[in-house]
């Protein structure tokens, strides 16, 4: 197993957490919907980053919203991390991607952590706690295990909880993921790109930054205490919403300070950091060709453009080749890394 390239092992590790995963589909964030729109940079964006899409001219974008699970079964109403992958279409056929999720931090500091986490996250049978057990939890002021959803027989929650209990860096991510709920709409959630990137301004000054998308419509989420939503509502809600009016997000860029965790995606930055509004994303329609816009399209967090560089975050770098490996397995549209990634073990 260890003889396989790192990217293959990473993808295999992710898939192992979803026993019903279907070959030819994405290992996680399997179910998604493609949307079209444009991004317009703010007046100040160009002062911080020389990247083309921050220059001020509107840029066409392709966005894929997704549920986090690698299962082919769609359970929109289940508590789950959601994804928002954005491609900015630049001049001369170039492009840059920004991949974000509703979780504000990651579970793993590096690749070794990631393998350990995915091993712990294997699905195990779940059932409802006995009422006596729940009473005991109450008496101990302990958070009870959530009841499984109707039809849910397996979950990775017990494993991830056990992992987090042993590894403090994973606790925030596991706790937040456990209570993340389901958005009322894909466009009513905040999405975080989690990793640190380095942007360069017109004077050549380089800054460590993190990006997030904030919904202009505001954040609203169904929690487990709300009535369970149907398995399929998010895509229909998006179609109906965009048929009436556009949906917008603000791209916020947080500037890190010396001492902030640059290469560790398990550590969010303090809320006090300077945040710059970099522009507005306007989503106008659900793509007509969903096979192209939601399935064949291949995003990569390291598909960057001059003015934006990857930080030294080992998870970010590992994702580059893992995403390419995933693309190859499902026959997605080739990205610039095809043929040349350093799949070091």
């Amino acid at each position, binding site marked *: 197993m260890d003889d396989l390239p790192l990217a293959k092992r990473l993808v295999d590790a992710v898939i192992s957490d979803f026993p019903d995963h279907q070959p030819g589909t994405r290992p996680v964030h399997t179910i998604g919907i493609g949307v079209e729109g444009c991004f317009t940079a703010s007046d100040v964006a160009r002062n911080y980053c020389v990247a083309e899409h921050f220059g001020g001219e509107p840029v066409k974008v392709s966005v894929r919203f997704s549920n986090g699970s690698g299962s082919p079964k769609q359970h929109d109403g289940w508590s789950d991390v959601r994804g928002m992958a954005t491609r900015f279409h630049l001049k001369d056929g170039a492009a840059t991607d920004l991949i974000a999720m509703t979780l504000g931090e990651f579970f793993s500091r590096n690749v070794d952590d990631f393998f350990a986490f995915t091993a712990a996250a294997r699905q195990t049978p779940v059932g*409802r706690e006995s*009422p006596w057990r*729940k*009473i005991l*939890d*109450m*008496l*101990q*002021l*302990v*958070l*009870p*295990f*959530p*009841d499984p*959803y*109707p039809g849910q027989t397996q979950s990775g929650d017990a494993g991830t*909880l056990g992992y*987090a*209990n*042993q*590894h*403090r*860096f994973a*606790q*925030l991510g*596991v*706790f*937040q993921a456990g209570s993340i709920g389901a958005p009322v709409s894909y466009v009513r959630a905040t999405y975080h790109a989690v990793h640190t990137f380095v942007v360069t301004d017109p004077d050549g000054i380089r800054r460590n930054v993190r990006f997030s998308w904030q919904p202009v419509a505001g954040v609203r989420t169904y*929690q*487990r*205490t*709300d*009535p*369970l939503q149907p398995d399929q509502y998010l895509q229909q809600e998006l179609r109906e919403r965009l048929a009436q009016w556009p949906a917008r997000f603000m791209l916020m860029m947080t500037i890190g*300070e*010396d*001492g*902030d965790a640059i290469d560790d995606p398990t550590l*969010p930055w*303090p*809320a*006090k*950091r*300077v*945040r710059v509004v970099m522009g507005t994303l306007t989503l106008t329609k659900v793509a007509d060709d969903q096979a192209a816009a939601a399935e064949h399209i291949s995003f990569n967090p390291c598909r960057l453009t001059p003015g934006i560089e990857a930080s030294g975050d080992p998870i970010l770098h590992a994702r580059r080749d893992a995403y390419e490996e995933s693309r190859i397995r499902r026959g997605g549209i080739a990205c610039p890394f095809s043929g040349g990634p350093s799949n070091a073990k």
Partner: protein
Amino acid sequence: MPSSPTSNLTDDRSWFDRFVDRLPQTGIMKFVAARILVPYWAWRYPVQKQPGGPPFSIQPGDNVQRMMNLVMPLKDKSAVGRAIAALAIAQNVDEIYAGLDNVGTVHFARFVIVDNNICMMSVYDGDFTNYIRDFIATIGSVFDAVVSLVEGGDDVIPSEHNIEKFIDWVHAHDMYQVPDLATGILRDQEALKGDTAQTGNDDLRLLPRDLILQLNVNTNVSLGSGYRAYPGYSAAQVRRQFGIGW
């Protein structure tokens, strides 16, 4: 009580399941939790009181626009006592304004009376201890007048003769700032115990109890570091930018 997610259940629950799922929302369970369970667990697992004020940080952005939220219980818990406290402020407005201008690092400051507490809420730049030292030097006499109306205040006035004691007293009345991140309170509790390990034998399901027990000893807290529309600038920077100087 942490509440159990219940509404996603199918109808195959027994009456006992449904009863237990509803239990955290019932008055009897809330009573039992407040009067029996919390005192019991607080006795079983004593939690140290967290210090007030923002956490220590050397980073510039963390050292501007810091919050101080003093909650000071009045000795005289009557309308008369509250009126005396209000007059102590009103009669010294000039001294307060001149003093705060002279401190130079204060963005906002105000006194409020909540129930029978006189509270001073301020936003300042830089080190807490230096802030209080400057405070004593510039408006110590006003603060002495206020502190004399507060429980335990007589021990630390006049402040200019009890500087270190006064700083500790203010710090003790400053609200604990609950971390922005959900699991931050665990890290704060570990820090008080000198536990800085990356790994542990924790139980994340105890987070609600940890929070409850912390709020049992820190009854007045600030929830998170607060929203800022324009973070990261000192009072001096803001005044300079607007061309209104000191």
